[in-house]
């Protein structure tokens, strides 16, 4: 087990390195020159000399590997550079937006896990009954409905029928819980609904699988009450793939964040990435994607470790 953990930890480094390199290259390949953007404006007049000067200022005239090296060195010291678009340090821009996205992601995950696991289990235990069908239909429906459409319908419904508009500014929950709630509740629903559907389905299918296992049948034959059997054995072993799913779906969650933050115009990290890509704001895109990758890798690592803990085949390797 220990070697497993160590191996996994060590493997993070090349992964992140690779991810950073990929991002770096992609951003340089996209057509669009940030220097031109900065100088261009709506009624652009492009002075070649000014263009060169700006590019020099931004360090864009260095060869790619040098730029990459400089950037990496900065990252190790937690310096992600300065946004080419706003002129503020990337870290600052990020920290402003992080609380909102973090809260949205965590709440959505929490809510969906709390909903999906019990429902998934019920559906599996009562397979092919109307309960099962209902839960399946709802969860499949949830997967099928585009999240931005849910967001659109939410806004539509709220605006037209209740004349209600969401608060325009983010207030952290410890400052004003009610304002925070009223701003976040609908985005959380929009992101979480999908996520809950995915996890319900997965829970159901893995519990179903487990319920067919021989040793479950054995336990059943021993005469324990059905509920104990299901909860103790099925849950423990069904947790495995579900936890894995939470890890892999986390990335999908980020995608959901992007779209939801766009629909509800929340000033979060998701929307920031889209804006930064549009503006060719390399430092921001690199930093954000790198950090997202980092977070994701950590989450996956934790998931893998939990997986390994529960799977005797790996644990005792």
């Amino acid at each position, binding site marked *: 087990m220990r070697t497993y953990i160590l191996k996994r930890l060590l493997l993070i480094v090349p992964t992140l390195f690779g991810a950073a390199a990929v991002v770096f290259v992609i951003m340089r390949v996209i057509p669009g020159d940030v220097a031109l953007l900065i100088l261009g404006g709506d009624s652009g007049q492009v002075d070649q000399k000014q263009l060169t000067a700006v590019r020099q200022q931004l360090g864009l005239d260095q060869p790619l590997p040098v730029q990459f090296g400089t950037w990496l060195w900065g990252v190790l010291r937690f310096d992600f550079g300065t946004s080419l678009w706003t002129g503020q340090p990337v870290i600052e821009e990020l920290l402003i937006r992080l609380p909102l996205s973090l809260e949205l992601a965590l709440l959505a995950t929490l809510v969906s896990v709390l909903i999906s696991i019990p429902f998934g289990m019920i559906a599996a235990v009562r397979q092919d009954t109307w309960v099962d069908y209902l839960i399946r239909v709802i969860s499949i429906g949830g997967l099928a409905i585009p999240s*931005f459409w849910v967001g659109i319908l939410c806004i539509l419904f709220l605006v037209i029928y209740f004349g209600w508009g969401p608060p325009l500014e983010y207030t952290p929950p410890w400052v004003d819980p009610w304002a925070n709630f009223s701003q976040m509740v609908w985005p959380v629903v929009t992101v979480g609904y999908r996520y809950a559907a995915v996890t319900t389905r997965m829970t159901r299918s893995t519990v179903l699988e487990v319920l067919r296992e021989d040793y479950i049948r054995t336990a059943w034959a021993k005469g324990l009450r059905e509920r104990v059997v299901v909860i103790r054995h099925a849950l423990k072993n069904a947790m495995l793939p579900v936890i894995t799913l939470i890890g892999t779906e986390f990335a999908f969650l980020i995608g959901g964040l*992007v779209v939801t933050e766009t629909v509800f115009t929340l000033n979060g990290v998701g929307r920031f990435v889209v804006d930064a890509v549009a503006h060719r704001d390399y430092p921001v895109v690199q930093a954000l994607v790198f950090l997202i990758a980092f977070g994701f890798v950590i989450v996956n690592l934790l998931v893998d470790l939990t997986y390994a803990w529960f799977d005797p085949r790996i644990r005792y390797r």
Partner: protein
Amino acid sequence: MATTTLTHVRASVPLAPRLTIGQEVVKFIRVKPLGAAGALIILAMMVVGAFSEVLAPYDPYHADYGLQFARPSVDHWFGTDEFGRDLMSRIIYGARIALFVGFTASFAGCTLGALLGVVSAYAGGRVDLFLERLMDILLAFPQLILALAIASILGPAVQNVVIAISIPIIPRAARVVRSTALSVKENVYVEAVQALGASRRRIVLQHIVPNVTAPYIIMLTAQLGGAILAEAALSYLGLGSAEPTPSWGLMLSGSALSYAEKAPWIAVFPGIAISLGVFGFNLFGDSLRDALDPKLRKG
């Protein structure tokens, strides 16, 4: 001793009588009604997409300026949009785009991913390590963000959307297939077979591939719905199909909400179309998974 055939290892289960295709279908409908419903939806969508020219009452690009924002009526079953274009015709043609993107992207992504997964699992060692690293790197990017970045490079166009969506699918398919292949590899049967001297190729073909086929097909049908959704999301964000293409996601972008009070059908019907289509794929895929998983077959 000559090579022992392994026939005696194959489970000898009394075979059920062979059914005709028709009887299989009826059985499927009876046993898995939800799946059958899903299949029906998919079929309907494919028919609509294939025969758009015949089914659509109007040219999806034709704008009737006197009839902007027309309510659903006998002439225009789903009403018209902000340009006076018939919404139903646009939705019908939209099926074609959704299906094209969905099938192509998920098929390409899943197949490539499955290949990589099998190779990775079976080759083991350094190949496995390298491929795993590569997949991990790709997996480090959230699906939409990666698709977004790729779509930005390539520009908004249908073929670019396909590429942008299929790439994030590859590592995900690879991961699933690899873990299944791994578990097969470590299964007692296979170890026994290996001990008896069966060739690698035989193991792969006779044991791994059949066991991997089920998750592959499941993954495929699962990703189909996702691919259609991804196309809608990218078009919504302005990175997918461009106007005046009748893409469902594009129809929902920005202005749909602005016109929603005046003409709610603009925001409603394309969303229903997307949801219904993906719903069909998911229902079918779900039941397919149930049916294909040998451990879950009843009796």
